[in-house]
């Protein structure tokens, strides 16, 4: 039987885990969110905030976009639609697409590896394990 302290402790643990995970996957998450179409900052922020593990703050998003732009992974253009205020739209560059493909492959590999370990630890049949390329 769980005590209330256990539940709080688990919530705390999950929160810390999510923070660490978010830090490690930020580039992948941003690049993935931009893969289909150009997106401006506020729309991108709201898109990411729909999921607990990708929810980041404004103060994290904008400097990160600035860094990705300096690294040549995204490009940005100011677009004005009708009478609305100009917005800065970000889109992937060719280098950004290559980086996204590499990070996505690494991510899937990590998930498969961890799944295999978890399955082996719990005594279930091991998942199919691909060798890293």
């Amino acid at each position, binding site marked *: 039987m769980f005590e209330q302290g256990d539940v709080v402790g688990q919530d705390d643990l999950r929160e810390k885990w999510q923070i660490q995970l978010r830090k490690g996957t930020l580039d992948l998450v941003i690049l993935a969110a931009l893969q289909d179409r150009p997106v401006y*900052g*506020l729309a991108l922020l709201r898109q990411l905030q729909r999921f607990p593990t990708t929810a980041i*703050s*404004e*103060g994290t998003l*904008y*400097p990160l976009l*600035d*860094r990705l732009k*300096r690294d040549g992974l995204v490009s940005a253009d100011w677009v004005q639609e009708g009478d609305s*205020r*100009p*917005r*800065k739209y970000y889109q992937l560059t060719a280098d950004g697409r290559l980086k996204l493909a590499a990070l996505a492959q690494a991510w899937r590999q990590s998930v498969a590896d961890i799944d295999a370990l978890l399955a082996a630890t719990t005594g279930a049949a091991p998942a199919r394990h691909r060798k890293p390329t």
Partner: protein
Amino acid sequence: MISREPIQTYMRTLAARLGRLDPADADEVILEIESHLQDVLEQAEVRGEDLDIDALLQGFGSPEALAAQYVAHIQTGAPPPAGFRVIQRVRQTVTRGLYYSMAAFGYAIALGCLLLALAKVLQPSLVGAWSANDGNSVVVAWSGSPHPAAQEVVGYWLVPIALAAGLWCAELTRRVLRVLRRGLS
């Protein structure tokens, strides 16, 4: 109506802290953050919601911390190679010398031009630009007596010309010093 005063205060502080960025880059950061904030404000007003401005700004962190993230790459950059610190110290010393020399030289010329314009107003017969060497050269001087055997070429036009030259020189010096200042840190 939602008060925009905290946003204006935030943006002023942010702009001041982005001073180390290239001005065009800093303007773009300001424009983007302002655009974001105004979008959120307008959407809240359209929906008739009472927006918590402080909570909105909290998402960006303090203006100092936000600016620090934008300028971090200037301060850190790539890891320095071995011996780089010595090279960097020499570079900073040279830059510092150049900075103060440039400041003294540029502002002295600017001040000289401004004084020349003032002197032309106060003592028009003793200050001027004279044609000399049979028209092969021009002498700009503030002499004890009027130039005897030469013709003054610009007359009172020397005042606006000297003023414009002085201001241009001061502005040019200010811009060069701004660039050099980045190399001092």
